[in-house]
C-alpha cells in the first residue's frame, strides 16, 4: 500500500535542488531499483522468461500473414487472406486502445468517460487533413498528433480540476461535445452520421487496397508494440510511480510536497495522445471514420475491455481488447447463421444481438470473476504457490474512485 509513497519520498528529497528541466528528465527515468535481495534471482529469471515469451509472440504475430493457418470459428479465412488479417489488425488496434485506457484507470485511477474523444480526434483530424489540404500522409499525421496533444492538454487541464465522479462527468461532457460536433457535420467536413471516407490520393500505395491488407496488419502490430512500450515506460517512470501513489492515497502524496495534478495530467495527455495514434491507424485500416469512435459508447467499450482483462494489468488490457473485438465480430456472424435464424423467437432474438451477449458476459464477469482475467490468473498462481506477487485488480479498481 505505502511502498510507492515511501519510494517517492526518498526520490523527492534527493531532487530538491534540481532545475525544472532536470526534474522533468528525472521524472521520466525509472527510479533506482532496490538492491539484489533473496527474491531477486527468481524474479530476474521470470522477467527473462516473460520477455522471451513476448518476443516469440511478436515474431509469430509478425509471421502470420505469410502462413496458411485455418482457425475455423475464430477467424473467417486463413491467416494470409485479407479477411482474417483485417480482423486481427482490428483486434490489435483495439488492444492498443484498451492499453491507453489502462494508463488512465489502471495506473492513475482516473475513471474517464471521454477517452473516445481522442481516438475520434485522431481519426477525424487526419481524415479531414487528407481530404481538404492535400498534405502527405506523414506531415498530416504529425499535425494530427499536435492537435491531439493540444486537445488532451486543454481538456485534461480543465477536467482534472475535479476528481471522482465529477471528473467522469466532465470528460463525458467533453466527449459528448465532440460527438455532437462530428454528427453536426460542420461545412461537410466530418460526413455526419455517414462518417468520413478516407481520401487515398496522398497515401502511399502499399497501404491502399485489399491486397495490401497485410501491410496494414503489420502497421497495427507496430502500433500495439509501440503503445505497449510507451505505456510500460511511463508506468515504470517516476511520474508513473507518482500517479500510482496518487491513486493509492492522494493526500499522502500531497503531504510529501508532491503535485498530484501534474502527474495525473501527464498520464492523461500521454493516454490521450496514444489513443489519437490508434485512431489514426484505425482510419487507415477501416478506410474511414465513423461517429461511433467519438461516442460515449466507445469509451464504455474500452472500459468493458479493460475490466474483462483485469484492471491494472497491461497484458490484461490487451487480451481484453482482443477478446472483446473477436467476440463482437464472430457473434455478429454467428447471429446470421442458419442454426440461430431457425430457432424460435424466444432464443433467436437475444442470440442475434452480440451486444446483449457481451453485456451479459460482462455482468457475469463483474459478479463472479472479480478482477477479470488477470484476477483469475492471480488467484490461480496464488493457489499453486508459485508466481510473483501481483497487484490485486479488485483493489486497483476500487481505488479508481
Amino acid at each position, binding site marked *: 500500500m505505502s511502498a510507492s509513497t515511501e519510494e517517492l519520498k526518498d526520490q523527492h528529497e534527493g531532487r530538491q535542488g534540481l532545475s525544472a528541466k532536470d526534474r522533468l528528465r528525472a521524472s521520466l527515468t525509472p527510479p533506482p531499483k532496490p538492491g539484489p535481495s533473496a527474491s531477486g534471482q527468481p524474479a530476474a529469471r521470470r522477467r527473462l522468461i516473460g520477455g522471451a515469451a513476448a518476443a516469440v509472440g511478436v515474431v509469430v504475430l509478425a509471421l502470420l500473414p505469410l502462413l496458411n493457418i485455418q482457425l475455423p470459428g475464430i477467424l473467417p479465412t486463413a491467416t494470409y487472406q485479407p479477411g482474417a488479417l483485417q480482423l486481427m489488425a482490428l483486434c490489435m488496434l483495439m488492444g492498443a486502445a484498451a492499453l491507453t485506457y489502462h494508463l488512465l484507470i489502471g495506473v492513475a485511477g482516473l475513471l474517464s468517460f471521454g477517452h473516445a474523444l481522442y481516438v475520434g480526434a485522431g481519426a477525424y483530424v487526419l481524415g479531414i487533413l487528407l481530404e481538404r489540404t492535400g498534405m502527405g500522409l506523414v506531415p498530416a499525421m504529425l499535425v494530427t498528433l499536435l492537435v491531439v496533444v493540444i486537445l488532451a492538454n486543454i481538456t485534461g487541464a480543465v477536467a482534472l*480540476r475535479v476528481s471522482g465522479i465529477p471528473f467522469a462527468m466532465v470528460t463525458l461532457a467533453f466527449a459528448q461535445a465532440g460527438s455532437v460536433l462530428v454528427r453536426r457535420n460542420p461545412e461537410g467536413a466530418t460526413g455526419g452520421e455517414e462518417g468520413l471516407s478516407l481520401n487515398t490520393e496522398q497515401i502511399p500505395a502499399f497501404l491502399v487496397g485489399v491486397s495490401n491488407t497485410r501491410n496494414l496488419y503489420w502497421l497495427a502490430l507496430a502500433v500495439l508494440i509501440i503503445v505497449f512500450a510507451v505505456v510500460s515506460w511511463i508506468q515504470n517512470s517516476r511520474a508513473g510511480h507518482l500517479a500510482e501513489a496518487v491513486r493509492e492515497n492522494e493526500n499522502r502524496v500531497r503531504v510529501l510536497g508532491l503535485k498530484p495534478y501534474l502527474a495525473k495530467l501527464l498520464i492523461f495527455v500521454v493516454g490521450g495522445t496514444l489513443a489519437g495514434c490508434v485512431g489514426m491507424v484505425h482510419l487507415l485500416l477501416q478506410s474511414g471514420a465513423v461517429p461511433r469512435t467519438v461516442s460515449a459508447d466507445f469509451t464504455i467499450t474500452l472500459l468493458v475491455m479493460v475490466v474483462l482483462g483485469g484492471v491494472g494489468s497491461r497484458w490484461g488490457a490487451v487480451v481484453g481488447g482482443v477478446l472483446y473485438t473477436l467476440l463482437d465480430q464472430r457473434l455478429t456472424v454467428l447471429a446470421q447463421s442458419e442454426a440461430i435464424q431457425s430457432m424460435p423467437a424466444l432464443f433467436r432474438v437475444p442470440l442475434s444481438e452480440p451486444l446483449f451477449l457481451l453485456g*451479459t458476459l460482462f455482468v457475469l464477469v*463483474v459478479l463472479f470473476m472479480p478482477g477479470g482475467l488477470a484476477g483469475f490468473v492471480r488467484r490461480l498462481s496464488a493457489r499453486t504457490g508459485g508466481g510473483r506477487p501481483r497487484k490485486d485488480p479488485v483493489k486497483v*479498481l476500487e481505488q479508481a474512485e
Partner: protein
Amino acid sequence: MSTILLLLVTGIGLGAVYFLVASGLSLIYGLMGVLNFAHGAFLTLGALIGWETARIMGADSWGGFALSLLVGCLVGALLAALTEFVLIRPLYERHIEQVLVTVGLNLAAIALFEGIWGTDPVFIQGPTWMGMTTDVLGAQIPNHLFITILVAGLVLAGMVLFLKRTRYGMIIRAGVENRSMVTALGIDVRRAFTLVFTIGGAAAGLGGVLASHYFGYVSPLLGGSLLIFAFIVTVIGGLGSLAGAAVASVLVGVLQQFANYYWSIGDFVVVILLAVVLLTRPSGLMGRKVATA
C-alpha cells in the same frame, strides 16, 4: 415575445423530462454512491411498454394514455427493483463494480430491446387534444407540454412529501447525509436502497412515456441520449440533492432550447455550463462539499 414564451415553456417541458430521469439518479447516487447507467434502460423499457399498452387500448383515447403512464411507471419500478436486488446488492460497498454492473446491464438491455423492437424510431400519437396547441399570450404552446410539466411537478411534490413526512423518507435523507451513522443506529439501510431504486425507476419509466410524447417517437435508443443529459443535470444540480436536480433540470432545459433556437448550439452550451459549474462549485449548485483536486 410569443417566441420567447414558447421557448420558455418548451424548455421547462424538456426540463421536466430531465427531472424525471435525474431525480432518481441523484437520489441513488446520494444514498448509495452508485452512478446508475442502467437508468436509460428503465426509461426506455417504460416508454416501449407504455406505447404498446397505449396502442392496444387505443392510442388516441385518454384511458390509453393514462394507462400507458401507469404501466410505464410500474415497468420502470419493477425493472429497477429487480436490478437492485439481483445485481447491485451482491456487490455491497464495492461502488465501482456496482457502476460497472449497471453499464453491462444497460448494454445488454438496450441490445435486447433493439432485437425485439428494431432500431427504427416508431412515431406515436396521443389523445387528439395533446397534439393540438393552446394560445397563451400569443404563443402557440403544444398541449402535451402542460401534461409533462404537470406530471413532473406532481412527482417532485410527491417525492418531497415522501422524503419529509414519512419514516422511510427520513431514513433515506439521513442515509444520504451519513450512511454509516444510520447503520450504526440499527436501521437496515439496504431496504432503503431497494426503495430509492424503485422510486427512481418509477420516475424514469414515467419520464420515458412523457419523453416519447415530447419527441414524438419511441425507440430503443431513446434512453441513451437522455441519460447523458440527465447525468449532466444531476452533476450541475449537485449529486444527491433533489432540489438541485429540479433547479438544474429547468435551467438546462430552458438554456438548451434558447441556445438551440438562436444559435443552434444548445448541446455545447450545456457542456460549457457543466464545465463552468464544476470549476467554480465542484459539488454542484446545491450539493454537499466534496474534495477537489
